[in-house]
Each structure stands twice: as C-alpha cells, then as structure tokens.
C-alpha cells in the first residue's frame, strides 16, 4: 500500500500496545488542560487592559495558542500522520483566503453603506 507503513519509530516513544496505537501520557493531557485554563483566565484578564487596536489581535493570538494545544495534544496531531495535518492546515488556509479577500472588498465600499435603506422591503 502506498502510505500504510507502520510508524514504528513513533510507537516506540509511547505506550505501545499495538503498532498504530499512540496513547498520550496522562501528564501531557493534564498539563495541556491546566495550560488551557490559565490561558482562558489570561484572555479574560486581557480585557482589563486597553491596548486599542491590538485588543482583537491579542485575544486572537491567545485563542490560537489554545487551539494549537488542543490540536497537537488532545487531537494527537503531534503523533499523527502528516497528511492529516495537511488537510487541517489546508482548510484553515482556504478559510483565511476566504475571509481576507471578502474583507478587502467590504472595507473598500463601507462608507457607501446606507443602513436600513430599502423601504419597499419592509415586511
């Protein structure tokens, strides 16, 4: 089969019971859990400080760190085959393109918006 090699090297580093089983050690799981909780507190705490336009980016950065932890450890991506990571990252990439191109456009004609203007559509 083209891609179905046993990943023995990876299995050896973990509690291997079966060639393709990789159980994440409990310590790692608990550590990630604790980190996520701390980061949740941090992201709430960050709203007490006003950094102007960076507010959004800081909140997003913290959320991204949290998401990365979840993906890497809870979702086993660190121990997984790279093709799964490629699928995931591709989806994020296309989402980013979708949002950013839509944003380029919308910002350009924002001043022309006339809120609530369409009387005949009143239902």
């Amino acid at each position, binding site marked *: 089969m083209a891609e179905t090699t046993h990943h023995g090297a990876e299995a050896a580093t973990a509690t291997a019971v079966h060639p393709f089983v990789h159980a994440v050690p409990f310590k790692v799981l608990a550590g990630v859990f604790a980190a996520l909780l701390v980061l*949740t507190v941090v992201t709430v705490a960050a709203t007490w400080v006003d950094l102007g336009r960076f507010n959004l980016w800081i909140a997003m950065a913290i959320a991204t760190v949290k998401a990365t932890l979840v993906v890497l450890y809870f979702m086993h991506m660190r121990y997984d085959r790279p093709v799964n990571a490629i699928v995931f990252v591709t989806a994020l990439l296309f989402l980013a393109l979708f949002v950013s191109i839509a944003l380029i456009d919308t910002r350009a004609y924002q001043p022309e918006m006339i809120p609530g203007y369409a009387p005949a559509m009143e239902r």
Partner: protein
Amino acid sequence: MSDTHSPHLAHHFDSPVQQFESGKLGMWIFLATEILLFGGLFCAYAVYRANHPEIFVYAHRYLDKTLGGINTAILIGSSFTMAWAVRAAQLGRQRALKVLLALTIACAFGFLGIKFVEYEHKWKEGLLWGKRYAPHAEGRAEPAADPAAAVAATPPAGVNAEEHTLIPPPARGPAGLAVSDHADERLHLEQEAPKNVQVFFSVYFAMTGLHGIHVIAGMALLGWILLRASRGEFGPDYFIPVDLAGLYWHLVDLIWIFLFPLLYLIH
C-alpha cells in the same frame, strides 16, 4: 487477504492499520468541512465587525462574560476528559473509559444549561436577532443606553416620515448617530446605541446557535459511544470510534475557543 483478520476489519481493507488510517483521514477531512462551514459565519462576523465596530463594542456588553468564561472552562474540561477517555480506550481501561465519557457528556449538559440561561435572558429582554430585535427598557444588564428612546424613534411601518429626499430613514432599529470618527468612537458609545445593533445579535445567535447544534450532535454521538463502551466493545485492538468521536468533540471545543473572545470579550 490479510492474515490478521480481525472481526472489525471491513472486507475492502487489507489491514487494520489501513482501516484505522482511512478512518482518521476521513474524520480530519470531515473536520475540514466543519471549519469551512463555520468559516462562513466567521467571515460574516469579520465583515460586519470591520464595517461597524461600534455595533460590536456596544452590543457585546449585553453578553455575560462570567457565564461565557465558565462555559469556556467547562468545554475545555470536557475536551480534557475526552482526550483522557481516548487514552483509556487505547489502554483498555474499560471502567475509566465509561466514567470519562459520562463526564464529558455531563460537561456538555452543563454547557448547554448555561447557554440556555443566557438565551432565556436575552429572550426576555428582546435582545434577539435581526427582525426580532426589540430591546425592553426594564431588567437590562447594563445601563449603557436609553432603549426606550431607541424604540420610540423607530418609524412606524410603512410610513415615510421624512420629506424631500429619496433616502428614507432607517426602517428599523434604534435611531442614533452612526459613528464614523474612530478617535472618539468609544466616548460616543458610552452614551448612545449605534444603528443596527441587531446585526450583532444576528451574528451572535447564528454562531452560538450553530455551535449549540454541534454540541447536541456531539452529545448524541458520545452517548452512542458510551453505550458501545458499556458493552465493552473497545480496547487496544479497536478504539477507532472513540478516537473519531473525540476528534469531533475537540473541534467543537476549538470553535468555542474562538467564539468566546470574538463575542464576549470585545473592547
């Protein structure tokens, strides 16, 4: 034909490894579709927030940060128990698996319960989406604006009060100044509700609603997994369903990790 013929191996796969990896890849692709599904809502959020930041800054204060924070912690907790459950399945620890799955489902109930409290609160105050947006004066969480004035200023349906212009006033929503000057935007917002606050609540209900539906679907899925686990179906040889359900559940958590700051923590 494969020599290690497990009862869980479907006829068209050659080996359990091939089957396992196919399942995992399939699940990741499914998660990719979920990301793009929510992506549309994230895109709508980004576009409206870029266009009308004042609406988001004004309206997010009607959301309860504390409840949102608790819900975030609950979901993270459920993700943790889920990841632990997968570990238990891989190691064949049947009792731990069942307890952890049950805990995960319990967390999901907790999340939905709190979500219900939040929704009910907004329902009572009329802080609903688009056309249903009709805020009441009493019982408001924050005294940020005078909603009574906002309601009064809404022109009666079908009547165009303004003369000599082709452009009638906003058909719906509280009247007020749209903030164009970003410099003193915050000052403004302390006092007056911007136009089209309902846009925020449309986005809020669309995003949390779709997420809530995913939570419910996840609970059904986990319930089924728990049922199978209680029959002792899973172990080191066969834990794909637990693993895949876990992946789905983590994605639900992942989306909430972004929704929480985007909706509750605007400032």
